[in-house]
Structures are given as C-alpha cells and as structure tokens.
C-alpha cells in the first residue's frame, strides 16, 4: 500500500557554517503523518538539521530527500507547496495586520498576475480558525502578546497548506501555558489533516509529551530515535546532556518525564553512588 503523504528523509547528511562542520553524516527518516520532535544539547546540530531539511542551508555532503528526490534540486516554489517552515525568529513587517500576514502564507501558490482565489480564501479561513486567531485578524501583529503572535505565525505556515511542517523551537520565549497551547495546536493539526510535523524543541519533557517519534541528537549525529519511552532514558540524558537524572512516568499522559539530579537539594537516602554524576 502506498502512503499518499510526502516522505522526508535525510541520508548521510553533513552540513555546517563555513569551516565548521556541525552535522556529520546524519541519517534520519521522518515518519509520515506523525509528530517528530528533535532534541539535543546546544550545538548538537538541532537547528542546523532543521535548516538543512528546509533548504535554508546547503549540505556539504549527503542529501535531504522528499519523496526520493533531493530538495536541494527541487524548484523552490514547488518545494514550498509541500514543505512549510516556521523559522526561529520571523520578522513581522511594521504595522502589518494579522490577516495580511496570514495571507502571505499563500505566496507559493500564487502566480505573477494571478488574483486571490476561492481556494486561497479557504486556506486563510482555515488557518485563522484552526489557530483561533480570527478574532485578532484585524489587529497589527506588533501589538500582540508573544503567545498570540506565535499563533499568528503558525497560521501563516498553515495557510501555506503543506503536508509537512517544520518548526524551529516554536515555543521559545513563550510562557508555559502558551508553549502547551502551541504544541496542542500541532497535535490538532496532525490529527485533523495528517500533517507531518517536525519540531526542534528545547524542553525534553515537552518533547517526550508531544512526540510520536523522538530524536535525540549528539555531536551532529542521531544518538537515538524512537518512541519517547525508548528514547528518554537515564542513559540518553547522561550521554546527550551529560546530566544525571531520574525518569518518571507522567500520571496524566503516561509519557516519560525527566527529573534532573543536581548536586544539591537531595533528600537523605538519595545520595548518588561514589563517582556518579561527575565526569
């Protein structure tokens, strides 16, 4: 049986900035129709991987394949109709209204002279409704709160109507309630439309909570990937972050949660064994 969804995979990928190589022959298959979350320490290559997967960065070796075809050899516009990206720090033009910003998500679908179509209208309508930003539609983006603004950017990416959506740390700088709101939105989107979501997240626990497929990077390679239960282990945290931790189970979701063990604040009887916790 063939899956109608687009398939994104990364083979033997090396990439970096100038002389500095960050990704080192990395392999990754993105499961279609699922939520993949990429975690890792700073400088482990999370953002570099996402930037290369969305063609913002060219690989020095290896390929990013969309349906078996290199995205670095696909026409930009064609790619933008299949693969959407919400970068880490998009810029809202001064004074722009939410409605106008979201409408720009239709860019790859519009020709040089083509006018606004019914289909464009529906895409924007859906994006505004799904992100609950319809009420904000006529407000200038610069007046919105951080959480609202992030929802608007997600709406723009949704209006692009791609089967795959990449997000680079979409919850950075947001209060925890807004972080959860954005991640819930991704699940809604994934459930309702089967959109393949790939996110880089900083927070391990949120990653494990929302991922179908969790990928832990270390040293420019995939250290381990799989279900959150398989990936988020005390061993993984130790080798990826160099941190001692305990893994518990979230009573609400049944997902693993990582609790760090520092050097202080331990109750009696919880002393680490000799030598543990120090490298």
């Amino acid at each position, binding site marked *: 049986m063939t899956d109608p969804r687009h398939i994104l995979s990364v083979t033997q990928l090396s990439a970096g*900035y*100038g002389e500095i190589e960050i990704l080192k022959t990395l392999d990754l298959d993105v499961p279609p129709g699922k939520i993949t979350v990429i975690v890792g320490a700073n400088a482990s290559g999370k953002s570099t991987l996402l*930037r290369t997967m*969305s*063609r*913002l960065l060219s690989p020095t070796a290896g390929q990013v394949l969309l349906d078996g075809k290199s995205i670095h050899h696909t026409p*930009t*516009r*064609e*790619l*933008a*109709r299949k693969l*959407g*990206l*919400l*970068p*880490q*720090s*998009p*810029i*809202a*033009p*001064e*004074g*722009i*209204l939410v*409605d*106008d*910003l979201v409408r*720009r*998500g239709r*860019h*790859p679908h*519009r020709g*040089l002279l083509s006018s606004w179509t019914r289909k464009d*209208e529906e895409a924007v*309508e859906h994006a*505004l*409704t799904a992100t609950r930003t*319809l*009420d*904000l*539609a*006529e407000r*200038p983006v610069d007046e919105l709160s951080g959480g609202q603004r992030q929802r608007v950017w997600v709406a723009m*990416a949704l209006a*692009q109507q791609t089967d795959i959506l990449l997000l680079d740390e979409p919850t950075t700088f947001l209060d925890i309630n807004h972080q959860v709101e954005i991640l819930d939105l991704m699940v809604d989107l994934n459930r309702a439309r089967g959109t393949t979501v790939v996110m880089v997240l900083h927070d391990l626990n949120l990653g494990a909570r929302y991922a179908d497929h969790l990928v832990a990077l270390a040293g420019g390679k995939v250290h381990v990937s799989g279900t959150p239960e398989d990936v988020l282990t005390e061993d993984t945290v130790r080798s990826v972050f160099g941190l001692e931790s305990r893994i518990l189970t979230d009573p609400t979701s049944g997902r693993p949660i990582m609790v760090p063990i520092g050097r202080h604040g331990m109750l009696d009887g919880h002393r680490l064994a000799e030598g543990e916790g120090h490298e």
Partner: protein
Amino acid sequence: MTAPAHSIETLAARRRRRTSRHRLTLGILAGLVFALFTLTMVLGQSYTPLTTVIRVLMGENVEGASFLIGTLRLPRALVSVLAGLCFGLGGVVFQIMLRNPLASPDFIGITWGASAAAVFSIVVLSLSGPPVSIVAVVAGLLAALLVYGLAARNGVAGARFILVGIGISAMLRSVTSYILASAPAWSLQDALRWLTGSVNGAQISDVLPLLLAFTLFGGLLFTQRRDLEALRMGDDTAAALGVKVARTRILLIIAAVGLIGSATAITGPIAFVSFLAGPIAARIVGGGGSVLIPAALVGAALVLASDYTGQFLLPTRYPVGVISGVLGAPYLLYLIVRINRKGRSL
C-alpha cells in the same frame, strides 16, 4: 477600534474596504502629483492660463507662451515627475529589502556612484545624452555590488551594508568634487547639479530616456513585487515561502539601481528624495498595502514641490536638491535619535 471580525465573511468584507481605501489613497496621491505638475505648468514667474497651456500642449503655437511652456516648463515638470518616481521607487526597494529606513540609495553608495560616473563621463570623456545615463547606471550598479560584496559575510546584514555604503559614498563624493574642481569651464549652477541635484536646464530630450528607464526597471520590479513583500519577513521566512532569496535580491538591486542611476544621470543626486519617499508613503498607507507605488508618487510630489519652492517661494532661487535636503536632514536626525532611544543598533 472596530469590533473583532467573528466571521470570515465580515473579515473579507472589511478587507475589501481596506483595499478600496488603499486605492483611494493612491488616487489622492496621484491627484496631488497631477496638481503640482499643473501648478508648475501654469504658475511660474508669470501666470499662464490653463487653457493656454493646453493649447500649447496640443501643438498650437501661442505667441509668448510656446517657448515658456514647451521649452522651459514642460521638460522641467516632466523630468521632475519621472525623476521623483524613480528616486521614490528605487529608494523604497532598498529600505524594504534591508528592512531599515537608513538603507536609502543616498547613503549606500548608489546615488554617488552614479553621480561620480556621470560627472566623469561628461567632464573627462566629453560624453552627453544617453551614454551618460548608461555609464551612470552601470557605475551605480558597480557601487552597489561593491558595497554588497564588502558587506556580505554569512548573508547581508542591513547595518553592515549601510555602514560600508556610507564609506563608499564619502569616497565617491570626493571623487565628484575633485573632478568638478578641476573642470575649468564649469559654472556654479552646473557644479551644483552634480552635488545636490537640480532640474534646471531639463530638456525635452531628457524625458524619453528617463521614461524608458522607468518603464524597464519599474517593470522588472513589478515582477518581483510579491517576493519583495515576502523578504520583509526575513530571509528564512521568504525562503520557506518559496522565494529564491539570492536571485530575487540581485534582481531587486538591478531594478532599484537602474531607477536611481537613470534619474541621477539626468538630474544629479536630488538629496534625500529616495530616503524620504518610502517612510512618508508608509505613514500615509499604514500597515496594510504595498508601499511601492505610493513611494513612487510621494517621490514625484517631493521633487515637484521642492523644485517649485526653490524656484518661486523663496527670496533666492535654489536648485531642487537644496530644498529636498533641507526637508530630509531633520528626518534623518529624528530617525537616528529614535533608533538611539529604542536602544537598538541599526
């Protein structure tokens, strides 16, 4: 503040209303340009009735008016409009592309590159007419590419581009002054034209090349207008939306430099018009619509109004660039003060 649009229908209706308001604004701006154009045609040192002006324009030979209208006022007004359109449009493209109001061709080397080359080809190479325009456009482009090349390091940052541009501008400006100083036969008026810009001595033969340049480069810009809008959201977002960022940028630079260079070759660097037009247009239009056409119209209105002021409203006659410079300088200070206060770097 209107109530939020709870339905998509209300939203669409209000969007249509915004679009028609945008069109109305464009209409008013075009009307303003037309009114200033008419004023220039009708009222100078002497008053010529509109009917007489129209008769002359229709080709009729009117005693005492044909020379005044046909040879003096008409070329001046037409060149002012076209140069203003070019300066306004070319300027706003750079401001949008580099997301910084200080990224005006006045500051980033283009205007002065074109000006230096025009002076060089006239004084040293004894060229005149269209070849001067071509040399000026090419030199403007070279100056832009030089600045671009020097400023590019892991992508082009707006602030670095502007700072490098200011340096290059200063060099080119001194080249212009040097050539003018060593050109013996130059009258003060001619020299001023290349230092501050002037439409004195505009000829009807200047109109066609300028119109061609405006059509050609303006047309190129038209094909890139949506990509330019996408670039306003940052290079990454634009790329994610399917814009070929590097290619679009080069095309935009060619179009904007073509506009600025052609206008500079005819009028000299009319100070600050390309710097002022964009921000004024953005104020008028508000956040919604595109500022390209409004900026072009504001540019035309600025040149016409500055020239008229310099000609007739002050005790002494000044070339247009002096007046537009007087308008632009305070705004430049205001921008710098405001940027400082916000505590952000350029």
